[in-house]
C-alpha cells in the first residue's frame, strides 16, 4: 500500500515550505529555531488528535510506564509501521526511546554527510510525542538526537507539577 510513502512525501514538503519562508533567510539561527518550533507545534496538535482516536477502545492506563509502553508499541506502529526498538528509563520521569531505523530518516543516505539536517526531520515526531503525552495528562519535554543515521533517540522528561 502506498500509505507510508504519502506521509513521508507530505512531511518533506512541509519541511521545505517551512524553511522557505522569506523572513527566515535573514538570520540562520532564528531560521533554524523557528522552523523547528513550527514543525514541533504541528506535531503537537496532530499527536493530541491521534491519541484520542487510538485510545478510544483502550481501558484506562495504570501509570506512566503503561502510557510509555502504549506510545512505544501501538502509537508508534500505527504511525510508522514499526515499534520503538528500545525503551529505557531511570524510573524518575526520564525515558529514552530508541528507534534504530527511523522511518523519516531511512531515505537519507547513512553516514556523516547529512547529520546536520537530521534534527529537522525529528522536530515533527518530537511534537507528536509531546502532544500524545499532553492529551493523556502528562506534561513533558521531548528532545531528539541522531548519532548514527537512521537510528534516532527521543528523550522524554515528564514534568512533575
Amino acid at each position, binding site marked *: 500500500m502506498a500509505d507510508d510513502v504519502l506521509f513521508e512525501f507530505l512531511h518533506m514538503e512541509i519541511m521545505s515550505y517551512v524553511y522557505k519562508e522569506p523572513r527566515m533567510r535573514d538570520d540562520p539561527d532564528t531560521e533554524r529555531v523557528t522552523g523547528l518550533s513550527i514543525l514541533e507545534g504541528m506535531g503537537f*496538535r496532530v499527536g*493530541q*488528535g*491521534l*491519541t*484520542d*482516536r487510538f*485510545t*478510544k477502545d*483502550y*481501558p*484506562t*492506563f*495504570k*501509570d506512566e510506564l503503561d502510557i510509555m509502553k502504549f506510545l512505544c508499541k501501538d502509537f508508534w506502529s500505527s504511525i510508522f509501521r514499526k515499534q520503538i526498538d528500545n525503551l529505557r528509563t531511570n524510573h524518575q520521569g526520564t525515558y529514552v526511546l530508541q528507534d534504530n531505523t527511523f522511518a523519516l530518516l531511512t531515505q537519507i543516505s547513512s553516514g556523516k554527510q547529512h547529520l546536520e539536517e537530521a534534527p529537522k526531520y525529528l522536530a515533527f515526531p518530537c511534537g507528536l510525542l509531546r502532544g500524545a503525552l499532553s*492529551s*493523556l*495528562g502528562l506534561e513533558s519535554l521531548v528532545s531528539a538526537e541522531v548519532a548514527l543515521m537512521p537510528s534516532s533517540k527521543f528523550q522524554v522528561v515528564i514534568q512533575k507539577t
Partner: protein
Amino acid sequence: MALVGSWLYNICLAVVCVVPTQNELKFHYTVHTSLDVVEEKVSAVGKALPDQRELYLGLLYPTEDYKVYGYVTNSKVKFVIVVDSSNTSLRDNEIRSMFRKLHSSFTDVMCNPFYNPGDTIQSKSFDSIVSAMMVQSS
C-alpha cells in the same frame, strides 16, 4: 448531556438539552455536582481494581428527579448524561452505546484541525448526532 474537558481544569465543552424550555441552569448544577463523583471514581479505580479499567463509569447517583451517568476517556474528557427518572425504558446497554457514539463523534471533533482543544464545540455534525440520540431516547 454535557461534556467536560481536560485534566488541568474543568471546562464545559458542550451542554445539550432535550427540551429547551426546561431550566438549563438546573442541569448545569447537576452536572457540576456529579463531577465530584466522577473524580472519586476515577481516583478509586487506580487503587482498588487493576483489572476493571473500563471507561464507562455507570450510574453516578440517582436523585429524586434524575439519574446521572458518567464516562471518562483516556484523555480525561468526561461525558455526563442526565436522564429523567420517569423514563425507565433506558437500560444500561443503551446508555453504554450512547456513550460509545458520543465518544466517536467527539474523536472526530478532536481530529478536526480547525478545532482547538478547550474551545466550546461548534461542530454541526456533532450537534446533529447528539440531538438524534436524545430524540431517540425520549
